[in-house]
């Protein structure tokens, strides 16, 4: 009796872990709102990353639509910590003076929103 219970419990735990890994962590609707929000004295993400990240305002601005969420999270966290240097993005995410600083939840939500958009970039296949 004890063994089957343990087995079922283990199986449930395992299934839960697998589901958790596959599920998107961020809130897409909240991410869209944050992406489009213009903070006081600042600029929205959407003012340069146009059409939900499908276009850039210029060639220096990366296309973000359909990019992997966890890569986008890493990029934003690196901009925030200063590990990745870009004058515009460091200031934009609050690494310079704390203005409009993105929280971990903001980053997760924005990444989930962008990843949910149709792919503007894709996996590179050499031919």
């Amino acid at each position, binding site marked *: 009796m004890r063994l089957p219970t343990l087995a079922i419990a283990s199986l449930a735990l395992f299934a839960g872990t697998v589901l958790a890994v596959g599920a998107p962590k961020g809130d897409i609707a909240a991410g869209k709102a944050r992406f489009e929000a213009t903070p006081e004295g600042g600029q929205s993400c959407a003012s340069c990353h146009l059409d939900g990240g499908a276009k850039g305002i210029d*060639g220096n601005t*990366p*296309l973000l639509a359909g990019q992997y969420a*966890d*890569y986008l999270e890493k990029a934003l966290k690196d901009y925030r910590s200063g590990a*990745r240097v*870009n004058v515009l993005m460091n200031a934009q995410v609050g690494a310079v003076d704390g203005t409009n600083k993105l929280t971990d939840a903001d980053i997760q939500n924005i990444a989930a929103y962008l990843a949910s958009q149709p792919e503007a970039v894709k996996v590179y296949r*050499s031919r």
Partner: protein
Amino acid sequence: MRRLLPALTGTVLALAMAPAHAAGNAENGKPLAYTCSGCHGIPEYRNAYPSYHVPKIAGQNEAYLVNALKAYKNGDRQHPTMTAQASSFSDQDIADIAAYLAAQKAK
């Protein structure tokens, strides 16, 4: 001085109009970009420690790709593999790779 001024103005104008970086040649970039596919060409491929997906780069903006490779080269972006890759390329190689990858548009 009267003669020098127009000459100086001309020089300044010429400098301002010069492209910020060498133009990329997509055809030359194709063989150089072959190495990229080892990681960027595998769907769902992950970087290890920390674990996250290697970004999709096909169809990305050309100037952004140039900036990214140069940032790895000069240390503004930190990633051991990418720093090694970018450091092995000349500025012209980087321009060519970026031109090639940018032309691989997502559908």
